[in-house]
């Protein structure tokens, strides 16, 4: 053992992740999709809402590499623009669920006792709500609002996050290094943020990675029902809906947004699996 070999758990995890071929491919695909979505609308010669009624339903070709839709709008511009929306909804809603879920779960788990019992009972009650239906209700009643959209989705997804965080906190709280911290006279704040939180990050990251695709799926479902973003704006969900309707006439309208969407989900799920293996050396045996 040499001193230089000393490495933190983070570095070890990264090395393990790098050895996981599927996870690394997923990471590259994901970065590619994000990059294309970011610069796509800027480099495309057409705006996402620019109509050209002379060139409707044009297949993929030189001018329009992904083809055009029923109003002659460029599908490449619309797909990459939709990517921005879908990814943004995914990330922001996950962030919302992360903040709510982690604080709720950590507080509940660390406090324990009756407070914990009541807080978890509340989560159980909320679990019995038909949530997809609630989100639909919200969107129908209060109109299609981008902010409301990811707030609503985030509010749905935090429940599982809270449960995971709580379970991990309960486990760690009983572990001896937290007891040692208490015996050393550390304050609750110090124990929570310096000793508990860093050790919770592994499962949180993993679950967050898996939440992003779940959120994107929910957004797509809403878009599919016509409750997502409003035309002429686009998201992958709304584009897939249009594509599905016109599949016989113009299959590329379903193919390209569908491919982007499915690839993102694929990459995120594989990355999440890979992260779980990398962050938890015990599970990497499987």
């Amino acid at each position, binding site marked *: 053992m040499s*001193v230089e070999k*000393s490495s933190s758990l983070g570095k070890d995890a990264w090395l393990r992740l790098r050895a996981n071929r599927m996870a690394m491919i997923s990471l590259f695909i994901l970065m590619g999709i994000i990059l294309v979505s970011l610069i796509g609308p800027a480099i495309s010669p057409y705006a996402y809402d620019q109509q050209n009624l002379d060139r409707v339903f044009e297949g993929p070709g030189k001018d329009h590499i992904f083809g055009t839709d029923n109003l002659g709008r460029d599908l490449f511009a619309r797909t990459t623009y939709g990517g921005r929306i879908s990814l943004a909804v995914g990330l922001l809603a996950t962030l919302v669920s992360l903040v709510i879920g982690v604080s709720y779960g950590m507080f509940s788990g660390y406090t324990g006792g009756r407070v914990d019992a009541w807080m978890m009972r509340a989560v159980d009650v909320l679990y019995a709500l038909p949530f997809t239906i609630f989100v639909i209700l919200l969107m129908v009643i209060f109109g299609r609002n981008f902010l409301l959209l990811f707030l609503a989705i985030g509010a749905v997804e935090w429940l599982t996050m809270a449960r995971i965080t709580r379970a991990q906190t309960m486990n760690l709280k009983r572990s*001896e290094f937290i*007891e*040692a*911290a208490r015996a050393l006279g550390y304050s609750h704040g110090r124990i929570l943020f310096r000793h508990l939180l860093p050790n919770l990050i592994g499962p949180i990251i993993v679950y967050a990675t898996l939440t992003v695709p779940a959120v994107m799926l929910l957004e797509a479902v809403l878009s599919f029902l016509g409750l997502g973003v409003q035309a002429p704006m686009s998201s992958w969900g709304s584009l897939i809906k249009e594509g599905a309707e016109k599949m016989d006439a113009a299959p590329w309208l379903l193919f390209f947004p569908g491919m982007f969407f499915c690839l993102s989900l694929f990459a995120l799920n594989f990355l999440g699996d890979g992260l779980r293996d990398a962050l938890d050396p015990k599970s990497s045996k499987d």
Partner: protein
Amino acid sequence: MACVMPSIQNPPKIKAMGNLDIQNLKVSFHTREGIIHAVDGVDLSIKPGEIIGLVGESGSGKSVTCNSILQLLPTPPAQIEGGTIDWSGKDLLRQHDEKMRGIRGKEISMIFQDPMSCLNPYLSVLDQVAEPLVIHGMASPTNARKQACEMLARVGVQRVVDHPHAYPHEFSGGMRQRAMIAMALVTKPSLLLADEPTTALDVTVQAKVLNILKELCTDLGVSVLFVSHDLGLVAELADRVVVMYRGKVVEQNDTRSIFSNPQHPYVKALIACRPTLESNPVHLPTVEDFMNPKTGKCQALKKLESPSLNLDSQETLLEVQDLVVEFPTEDGPVRAVDGASLTIRKGSTHGLVGESGSGKTTLGRSILQLTKVNSGKILYQGNAISLENIQDRTRFRKSMQIIFQDPYASLNPRLTVEQALLEPMKVHGLGKSRKDRIDRVVKLLEEVGLGEEYLHRYPHEFSGGQRQRICVARALTTEPEFIVCDECVSAMDVSVQAQVLNLLRSLQASRNLTYLFISHDLGVVKFMSDEISVMQNGKIVENGLAEDLYRNPKSSYTRKLINSIPLANRSSDFGL
């Protein structure tokens, strides 16, 4: 429990049924970190009716050897590299899976270490005990149950006979291990492989289970390969002892000779470094005293000094009066500590011994206010401990510390040694500057036998013994007067245990520390302590000077506890 003197047998050297002969067995594990040669050329033979003890510390390859006999090792990562295991003329390493299945559980049975996880929680105990008979077509299901019932009654699991639908979780660990023995022997095999079968059990339960195992195997004429880390325990029942070290057999001999005349320095060390009830050394010899693990050369044995501690002149540091701690459960509160009182003198070690569930750990934690106390008083230097105001709390936390059992769980995996040791100083405002604090950390590390080069390492890069040293160093950062050692060497091999115990003793001398030393192991407690309290069911049943308590135990429980300890672990003179 009486010790049975080993009998020397001379069976004829013909290949008979029930003759196991392992030749040059080599097993390696292929892991990400590289190849580990777990078993490296082991020769071992068991004759019919013989009981062999296979002894070694963790990583010595004893369990791997045992598991390769029935080909139960997970492959990969394990890989048999070579050798033969001859069983009545068949080489077990070269048998087809189907042939192996006919041998497993019928000719050769096996029992494992952890009875809590080795029984299927979804099936009734009776069905599981009867299963080997059904699998091997030795009885109809109804008949198999009848035989299983008989066998269970023989090992003392009466409950199954009365409640045939009882599931494993309704039984204690000892009862489950008895059921495992019944399951292994119900087919009347020729050989029983027992892989640390009593390690997870309390010492009094262990004695009972061991007795049953020995009686039954002798009755049925089953030969036994008994694998254990505890040389003293093996001496209770083995005719012959085989000692393994780093994948190799270093010595094998009949039990009496191993103890009276050990040849290999490692075996000498193994016998010497375990504290026995009889001896009173200040320092325990360690494996390093006998051999340098790098060169394997034997070193001169250090002289042992005798202890000298005068308890009369010591003032009282901590007093516990009528302490009661209750835990809420679904069936109402359970009293973990039930009116316990004890007095700890300054500069002394107070031992607290008891079996699992006796409340000893809860008592230790409640002294440190890590567990809520229901009633009773804890006086520190004559004052009641209060955590109400911050000043008092800080002073109290600074002067009392704790070292836990599991050195893997008691260090935050995300902090380097330096960070872990600096933090308490920062919180308690010790040291003038960062540089001053780092100097102190380095000094502390040297005090516990680690160097400055370890400062920037993370806990996962250390061995168990090293981690416990770091935990000791961390407990010392606030310069406490009183330290609770909660089973702090229980998870360690005897050789590592000896080092940590020696460290704790020398620190006590140099820093005038007071310890509350909690353990289930009376031998270790007696080595460490000036006074001992024995705990059972939340109550302190006996209290006294260490030597008195051992020589003249007053309570029947203490006597039972002492009598359950294997003879060889009571006195190192065993066999001489």
